[in-house]
């Protein structure tokens, strides 16, 4: 009796979502997730914009900010690795609200910091929320998206992150001169708290999660009535085409033949995010060395964000149309070629902007495509964990420029000495 998706006694939720149209309710869920991701992107870049002004006020060297920058990254890594398994146990909605509240509270407190250790502590704790939200909203989007749109919707939602970085950057350039650096963190903290209220009131728990855990059939019935069929039979029984995996979710990333896929997926994450961060961090210095003005440098760097938004929002749709290999492979190869091109084009604003944009575009394909794959390859019981555990590798990639810089400096030092 599972053939008819609804009206019958047994309602197959997997088929109801996969075979049905994309409803306004499902779009609403994805918009809620994108909203959190947008502020994730805006908040992540805010400390970089505020750094020179904080350094002036605190009387510290800007070079010492590496610990403050790294603190948010450490928090995000811990957040993704811990919130992922917790979301598989206690629910995506609950953990997403907790993460959003953490972002709000500790971003507001950042504005009240009076010393570097306080700043580091608040950025670690805000980072915990920033990283912790990621596996929750990716899992929720993936679980409400019909199979034929799943990769496309996950990457479109994911593109809200660079979009948040871009819009946050523009807003910050207005806020800092008019209201001071603290205004960034007041606004950046209050808005996530308001979003948390919206999530609590309107965001449903993942219906597949509820069924995989077999926790609350009434809640499932209410959600089904909201998003598809008001006429669900009162004695309807709900099922999903997936089994609950008992025990520690992290362990299941390596069982039932999933270990090679899990390990193979981590490397592109490390490399993709590493190159994107190197290009974002080093391009301004590279351009200044070639005599390009600060205003033109900011213009060139903006192209990286623009390329990333286009690449990340289209990656999933292209993967679903053409497959994994025809999109991810050229994405990483052309991203590498554009990185080399950037090294030779740094004396021209137009050429540098083109190559920086291409790096963002192609590596946007690669990284967002890899995120979509992480959301797709794992079953519901361990999806948040699977997505959360790729994050330490992305964060390590983002930290690698600091290690690489230290390595280059040490080598340069040895050459000078000899």
């Amino acid at each position: 009796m599972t053939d008819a998706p609804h009206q019958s006694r047994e309602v197959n939720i997997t088929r109801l979502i996969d075979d049905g149209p994309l409803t306004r309710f499902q779009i609403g869920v994805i918009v809620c997730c994108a909203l959190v991701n947008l502020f994730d992107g805006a908040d992540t870049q805010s400390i970089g914009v505020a750094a020179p002004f904080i350094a002036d006020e605190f009387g510290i060297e800007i070079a010492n900010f590496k610990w403050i920058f790294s603190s948010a990254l450490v928090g995000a890594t811990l957040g993704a690795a811990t919130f992922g398994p917790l979301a598989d146990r206690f629910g995506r909605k609950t953990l997403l609200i907790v993460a959003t509240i953490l972002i709000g509270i500790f971003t507001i407190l950042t504005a009240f910091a009076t010393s570097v250790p306080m700043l580091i502590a608040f950025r670690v704790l805000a980072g915990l929320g920033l990283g912790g939200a990621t596996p929750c909203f990716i899992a929720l989007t993936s679980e409400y998206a019909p199979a034929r749109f799943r990769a496309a919707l996950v990457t479109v939602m994911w593109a809200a992150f660079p979009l948040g970085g871009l819009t946050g950057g523009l807003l910050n350039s207005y806020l800092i001169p008019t209201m001071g650096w603290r205004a960034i963190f007041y606004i950046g903290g209050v808005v996530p708290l308001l979003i948390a209220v919206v999530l609590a009131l309107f965001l449903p728990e993942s219906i597949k999660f509820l069924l995989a855990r077999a926790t609350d059939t009434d809640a499932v019935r209410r959600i089904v009535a909201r998003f598809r069929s008001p006429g669900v039979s009162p004695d309807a029984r709900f099922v999903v085409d997936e089994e609950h995996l008992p025990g520690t979710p992290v362990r299941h990333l390596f069982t039932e033949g999933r270990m090679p896929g899990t390990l193979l997926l981590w490397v592109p994450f490390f490399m993709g995010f590493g190159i994107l961060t190197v290009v974002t961090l080093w391009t301004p210095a590279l351009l200044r060395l070639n005599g390009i003005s600060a205003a033109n440098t900011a213009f060139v760097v903006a192209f990286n964000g623009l390329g990333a938004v286009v690449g990340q929002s289209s990656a999933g749709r292209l993967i679903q149309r053409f497959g994994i290999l025809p999109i991810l492979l050229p994405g990483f190869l052309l991203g590498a070629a554009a990185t080399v091109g950037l090294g030779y084009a740094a004396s021209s604003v137009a050429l540098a902007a083109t190559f920086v944009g291409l790096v963002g575009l192609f590596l946007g394909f690669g990284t967002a495509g890899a995120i979509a794959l992480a959301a797709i390859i794992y079953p519901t019981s361990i999806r948040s964990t699977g997505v959360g555990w790729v994050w330490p590798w992305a964060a390590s990639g983002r930290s690698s420029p600091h290690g690489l810089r230290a390595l280059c400096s040490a080598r340069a030092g040895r050459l000078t000495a000899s």
Partner: protein
Amino acid sequence: MIVIACGGLIAAVFVVLFRAWFVRQKAGLLADDTSTKASLLV
């Protein structure tokens, strides 16, 4: 920048290996006719 770009080449190699695993895993699931990992069938 050439050193950095090598990261892209390494990522590409791992994408090829991932794709090989993915195809094998999908084929195995179809052969087993199990529905427990329907999410793989994209």
